[in-house]
């Protein structure tokens, strides 16, 4: 099928096309322009604007090119005087509901320089302030069709603007109803926030009960901004492009394991205009989320002024040059014995700068090389593998996703933790694959799931065993991996009814999920760090392993952070140790075993050593307490190598040339210069090859493992051993998740009220029913009391959250939050703060 070629003629010229291509795609691939406003590569066809009508021989009617598939022997004409006349008439009809003064204005040729006419569109300022001016698809189509007049009076619908949301505004009066935003929101992103509402002339883009985007559960991924052909959806406060020279800089967002390629646009004065996804294949295929495009924008705004190095001398802070700071750092490191020095890195560094950092540590001779890794995710998996003698795959191969007919997400929300993966899964769902979700907290992907299993937190083992038991008894098929008979004996100890009750799931939904797993195989089980970040993680993994083996499916972890897959290689290369929390270092500082700490990035370090050197893009967080602060380029200005969740190396050049904007050196060159100051040389030029070979390497002895069922009894608590939990009245089970909305010691929600409005790390998510029961309202300031201490939080409603369960995802910037995150699931009581 894929090999066949379709032969057809467009405008008399013989053309070849692939089956499944639309006439519009085929014409475009030949470099032909057919006007169109609603079609967009990657979105399902809509045929709403009717501008792409073409003539096809033997067909009585003109057909929309975007919805007509190519056929052998087709003869297509894309442009005739009649067609163009028809298109022009259609465009005029479209324009009867869209302000079009900017398309017809007499002053248009001089507009850029003279700005002669102030009132052009609806508002004063009109097209001068229209952020789409010069980049508007309607303008392009009008130019192509040589629009001279519009036969109809423009009727101003006078709808009010959406102004109450941060980052995104919508002007319904500019909307063409092309439906791109609706399609991208539902079909590509799976957010389902937007829809057409009303009918006939009243039709508009709307949300559920016309609520604000925030209240509608919008994730602010900004895809609607990217696809809107006009300025109906536009980024808040965006400077119009016309009249400005725009400097673009591509970079990789280091904030999660997707490593999306983004593009920052700067104005002449060095001001960051906006951040958009970089995509060679059009806006639909671009990857970006609120964190990367709006969160980093706030961070980029902070970078307006250059951050300078700071030295603490005799309790006074001095601003110095980078050379002086590096010399001071070298001098301090020389002053101590190797064993008195600790070097710790946090996430967000590029892979090559991590190599440089640890190589420097090796050259200094210190054994105290640490990688701060609060998730502890791959470490736990590795420990489990050693214990059980099995092996779990690490790298997600995107090409293999096509193979699976069911995706089972276990405590992972790729929509917010690994966007690239989610969009690929969404594609598979569109072509018929099924989605199952097991999660005790809010999981955006759950909306798209055939069965969304919202179980009791900490009882994932029971939920998975309940599924396993159903699957075992629904099929007569045997499994031939060792240990199956033992597993059958063991699973009989649990009754189906008890497993369902303890997991907090209904028998019917478990039945449906089991049914789907059986009927559409193979399945891919994907689990995230929350699945292992709880006291019973080993039980969870045992149950999941057995379930996946019984279904002959695949099992893979989803790493949430950049370079996570590199940690093993770094361990082997440099003998570094992984720290889930900083307590060991803090203790060593207290007992003066460690006297100097060189921190790479921000760390929630509680103790201050004699000398603290911090290399970070901002003087924020730990850097504020540093004796020597070495500022580096931020991820927006930096290039380098990074490793994503598929184990691929992503690379961007380091060149950053925006006039009027000076940047600090990249991390890697700072480390190299520091090494020079210490009389050492780093082999930076070898790093790409070194990374490549590290990532390709198979784990040692991978062939000797056989697949086998894991016995439950040594790991999983016996059904009788555990009494039912007696909860105190008013006590909540709080799942503490990880938060990725920070960079370089800066918390996005702390920088911007807009970001705080959409994603506040101090929210305590509650089901409104629970809130009612506890006498709480949304927005109320509360204190959450836990066994480890008290937190000041704000109530946030989450109607989809399971009653009885609360969710909190703090940025890990203090010891208490670290502690709670380390627990994974805690109990707490909520009190109103006066």
């Amino acid at each position, binding site marked *: 099928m894929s090999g066949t070629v379709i032969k057809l003629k467009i405008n008399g010229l013989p053309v070849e096309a692939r089956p499944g291509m639309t006439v519009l795609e085929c014409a475009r691939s030949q470099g032909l322009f057919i006007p169109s406003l609603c079609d967009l590569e990657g979105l399902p066809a809509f045929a709403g604007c009717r501008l792409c009508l073409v003539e096809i021989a033997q067909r009585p009617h003109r057909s929309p090119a975007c919805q007509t598939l190519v056929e052998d022997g087709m003869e297509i004409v894309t442009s005739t005087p009649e067609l163009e006349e028809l298109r022009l008439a259609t465009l005029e009809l479209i324009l009867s509901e869209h302000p079009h003064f900017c398309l017809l204005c007499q002053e248009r040729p001089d507009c850029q320089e003279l700005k002669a006419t102030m009132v052009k569109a609806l508002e004063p300022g009109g097209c001068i302030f229209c952020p789409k001016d010069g980049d508007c698809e309607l303008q392009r189509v009008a130019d192509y069709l040589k629009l001279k007049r519009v036969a109809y009076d423009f009727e101003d619908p006078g709808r009010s603007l959406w102004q109450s949301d941060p980052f995104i505004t919508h002007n319904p009066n500019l909307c063409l109803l092309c439906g791109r935003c609706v399609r991208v929101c*539902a079909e590509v992103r799976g957010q*389902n926030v937007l*829809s057409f*509402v009303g009918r006939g002339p009243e039709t508009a883009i*709307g949300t559920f009960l016309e609520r604000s985007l925030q209240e509608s559960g919008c994730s602010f991924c900004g895809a609607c901004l990217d696809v809107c052909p006009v300025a109906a959806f536009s980024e808040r406060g965006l400077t119009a492009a016309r009249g400005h020279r725009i400097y673009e800089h591509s970079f990789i967002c280091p904030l999660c394991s997707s490593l999306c390629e983004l593009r920052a646009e700067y104005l002449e004065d060095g001001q960051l205009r906006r951040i958009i996804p970089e995509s060679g294949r059009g806006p639909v295929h671009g990857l970006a989320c609120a964190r990367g495009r709006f969160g980093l924008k706030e961070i980029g705004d902070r970078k307006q002024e250059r951050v300078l190095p700071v030295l603490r001398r005799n309790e006074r802070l001095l601003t110095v040059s980078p050379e002086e700071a590096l010399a001071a750092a070298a001098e301090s490191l020389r002053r101590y014995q190797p064993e008195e020095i600790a070097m710790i890195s946090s996430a967000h560094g590029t892979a090559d700068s991590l190599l440089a950092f640890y190589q420097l540590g090796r050259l200094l001779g210190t054994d105290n090389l640490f990688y701060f890794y609060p998730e502890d995710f791959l470490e736990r998996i590795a420990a489990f593998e050693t214990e059980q003698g099995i092996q779990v795959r690490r790298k997600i191969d995107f090409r293999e996703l096509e193979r699976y007919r069911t995706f089972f997400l276990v405590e992972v929300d790729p929509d917010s933790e690994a966007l690239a993966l989610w969009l690929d899964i969404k594609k598979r769902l569109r072509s018929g694959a099924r989605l199952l979700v097991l999660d005790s907290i809010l999981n955006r992907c759950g*909306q798209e799931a*055939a069965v969304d299993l919202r179980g009791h937190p900490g009882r994932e083992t029971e939920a998975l065993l309940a599924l396993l038991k159903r699957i075992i008894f629904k099929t007569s098929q045997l499994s031939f991996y060792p240990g199956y008979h033992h597993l059958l004996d063991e699973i009989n100890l649990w009754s189906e009814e008890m497993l369902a009750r303890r997991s907090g799931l209904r028998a019917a939904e478990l039945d449906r999920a089991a049914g789907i797993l059986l009927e559409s195989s193979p399945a891919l089980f994907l689990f995230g760090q929350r699945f292992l970040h709880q006291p019973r993680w080993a039980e969870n993994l045992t149950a999941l392993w057995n379930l996946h083996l019984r279904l002959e499916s695949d099992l893979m972890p989803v790493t949430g952070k950049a370079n996570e897959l590199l940690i093993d290689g770094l361990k082997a290369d440099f003998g570094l140790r992984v720290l889930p929390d900083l307590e060991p270092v803090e203790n060593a500082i207290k007992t003066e075993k460690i006297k100097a700490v060189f921190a790479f990035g921000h760390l929630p370090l509680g103790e201050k050593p004699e000398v603290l050197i911090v290399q970070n893009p901002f003087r924020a967080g730990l850097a504020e307490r540093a004796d020597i602060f070495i500022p580096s380029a931020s991820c927006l200005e930096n290039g380098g190598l990074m490793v994503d969740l598929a184990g691929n190396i992503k690379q961007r050049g380091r060149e950053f040339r925006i006039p009027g904007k000076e940047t600090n050196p990249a991390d890697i060159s700072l480390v190299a210069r520091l090494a020079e100051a210490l009389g050492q040389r780093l082999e930076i030029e070898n790093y790409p090859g070194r990374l490549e070979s590290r990532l390709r390497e198979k784990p040692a002895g991978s062939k000797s493992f056989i697949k086998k069922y894991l016995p439950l009894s040594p790991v999983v608590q016996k059904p009788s051993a555990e009494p039912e939990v007696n909860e105190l009245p008013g006590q909540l089970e709080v799942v503490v998740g990880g938060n990725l909305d920070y960079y370089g010691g800066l918390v996005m929600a702390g920088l911007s009220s807009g970001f705080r409005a959409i994603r506040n790390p101090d929210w305590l998510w509650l089901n409104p029913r629970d809130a009612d029961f506890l006498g709480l309202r949304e927005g109320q300031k509360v204190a959450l009391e836990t066994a480890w201490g008290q937190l000041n939080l704000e109530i946030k409603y989450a109607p989809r959250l399971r009653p009885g369960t609360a969710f909190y995802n703090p940025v890990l910037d203090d010891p208490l939050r670290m502690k709670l995150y380390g627990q994974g699931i805690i109990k707490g009581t909520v009190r109103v703060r006066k």
Partner: protein
Amino acid sequence: MTEKLETILASLPAERRYLILFLHLVQQELDYLPEEALRAAADYFAVPPAEVYGLVTFYSAFRLKPGCRHEVTVCQGTACHVRGAGELAAEFSRLLGVRPGDKNPEKGVALRTVNCLGCCALAPVVVVDGEYQGRVQVSKVPEIVKKLTGKK
């Protein structure tokens, strides 16, 4: 209300094509479609809430607010339109003191216009408190209004 919704849901298979039927049943039962019903429908039929809302706003048969004691519906379909449905609606609006799509709580009357009632042979059609009246002339409107507001 929750129980009523759940009873109705329980009587329908969880398939998308029963969504409209569900909404009709709820409106019959509760007189309008409260937010809770839309959310329950979205959850049960696995249709995004925004889409449920889009559907409800598309069909004029559905309403999101409680109705009135009396209700006048004036058809604006093509056949009715050419037979003067526009003037009919305007006359009702004038006499009832209510704009189409609005209600007058004092008189307890709601007036609305719909796109087609499917009985074009009777055009222009007006539905007064559920009773279809065909070939209504503007001159008959005062009588209808008097009957309506008089009967209370």
